[in-house]
């Protein structure tokens, strides 16, 4: 799982779940999600749950902040980092 794959999966999830499919195709990887009210803390929790289900990655509460959840790119970076982090622990 690389960051680009996570980005694509997050884009699709956000389009379907929070933007009614985004028929106008407006969502981009740098759309400010929190700032524009596309996700709020309620939906952040849904998103974190989805990441856990789809990628088996647990995003720790300390990582759930407005900087990390600003847009699809920053969220994907956090997910990738958390995945690498837990893989390291397993091999250690």
């Amino acid at each position, binding site marked *: 799982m690389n960051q680009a794959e996570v980005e694509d999966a997050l884009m699709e999830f956000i389009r379907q*779940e929070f933007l*009614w499919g985004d028929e106008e195709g407006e969502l981009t990887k740098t759309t400010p999600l929190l700032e524009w009210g596309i996700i709020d803390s*309620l939906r952040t929790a849904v998103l974190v749950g989805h990441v856990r289900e789809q990628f088996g990655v647990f995003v720790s509460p300390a990582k759930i902040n407005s900087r990390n959840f600003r847009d699809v790119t920053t969220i994907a970076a956090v997910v990738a980092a958390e995945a690498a982090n837990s893989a390291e622990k397993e091999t250690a």
Partner: protein
Amino acid sequence: MTLHELAIDSTTKFPDRLAVASGADTLTYRQLDEAANRFAHRLRDLGVGRGDRVLLWSDKSTDMIAAMQGVLRLGAAYVPLDGTSPVARVAMLAADCGAVVVCAESSRLAAIRAAVDGDHAGLPCLDLHSESTVDTKAVNEPVGDDELAYILYTSGSTGTPKGVCISHRNARAFVDWAVDELRIGPEDRLANHAPLVFDLSVLDLYGAFATGASVHLLAAELANAPAQLVRFLYDQGITIWYSVPSALLLMMRNGGLLDQHAPDALRVVCFAGEPFQIEGVRALEAWTGARLLNLYGPTETNVCTYHEVGGPDLARQRPPLIGKACSGDEVWAERPDGTVAGPGEEGELVVSGPTVMMGYWGAEPQVGPYRTGDIVRVLDDGAFDYVGRRDHTVKVRGRRIGLGEVEVAAAGHPDVEDAAVVLVGSGMDARLAAFVVPVRGRAPGPLAVKAHCARVLPSYALPDHIHLVAAGEDLPRTRNGKVDRPALVRRHTELVAQRAERRLASAPAADPAPGPEGRTP
């Protein structure tokens, strides 16, 4: 008695007790005292003094709490804004309240400097986290009970936010009542769930500071994260919880709150901001032996009535009563003809007493009783039962939103001619839907409209669904020309159903796509 004396007195009595915790960041009373004094000196160096307003734009942190105390110690008033507030709104409100200094987190300083430079260059912007001043000499300027302590901006129904001005007397009347009623003591640990711009936080902060107890801040990002909220309640050993009912419902439904034994430490659960549907109250009551209190009051009066939930309430098929007057206030229901409503009658709730605000910033001072705009029914014993709102304000997860303000924001988009906003869904699922009438020949996308609104509205007031009204059509109107909001709510339901059908038709058969919010964890 001033509001800031509370923490100062507790520092003398309990210097080494925990005062504030924000994640791993903690301050004892002595540390809070020193940080508040340091901050006061930095502001004083910039010329801040009695009667001035200082805008504080920040996420929750121990530094933010110390800054609030520092401002008060100068006899000045603080104006808190969430870190998530758009920078244009921060600049607008700084101008509105005539702030003499804006304080922000390091990462946001450049943005606020750029935003204020256009309109009122020279307004100092201070880094909330800098430790450049080492002077911790005590600061405690004398200030009158009826002088301004803080301004809380709330969403206005006319299109502009309103700054609710709260004096030291206003705040103390509520805090003193709460400390007494909840018997708060130095052993208590209070959760701070609400944002600092929301008046629920006044109880959490000053209930703790008044008694040498500790307040435990919940980051805004975690405010609706069910599992984290439940973990926080246990891990922090919270004894007094205060939040909107939707946070508690979320913890029960999605956070597994009821699956484990209620924490022994938890002794009081207060809720306010919106009606708590009785099923949730019953579940909570069966789970914990903690006292359950329904607190009521708009920002303009803070808590002016309360009701402790007990046996007979649970048998009702309605949310708990809002109860009887508190905080030294007098409260009554007024009928449309101006007379006082008696038992069995309905009327608008009116409040008089020490918690009634000084007024809205920039408007005439509040004189006499405050009319809440809330309709209540008077019960036989004089207690009040909440019925509903009079005007076009709605609540989304406890936050009051003037639909007019959202409509003005949406209609401000250059491609939008007119807009109407309605509340759809209820409780945790409540959201705003905006119907926008595009300028002839234009078709602004939903995200473009959201982006535009986000420049001026706080995030909790942003519309979620954006419906474009078809070319040549107008908003549905009532016979007297007003927007027909119930018709818009029905239209929204139809549109949502149509979209769901379209998506179902286009989705692969093996993957029945759930609608938004359909996939709850």
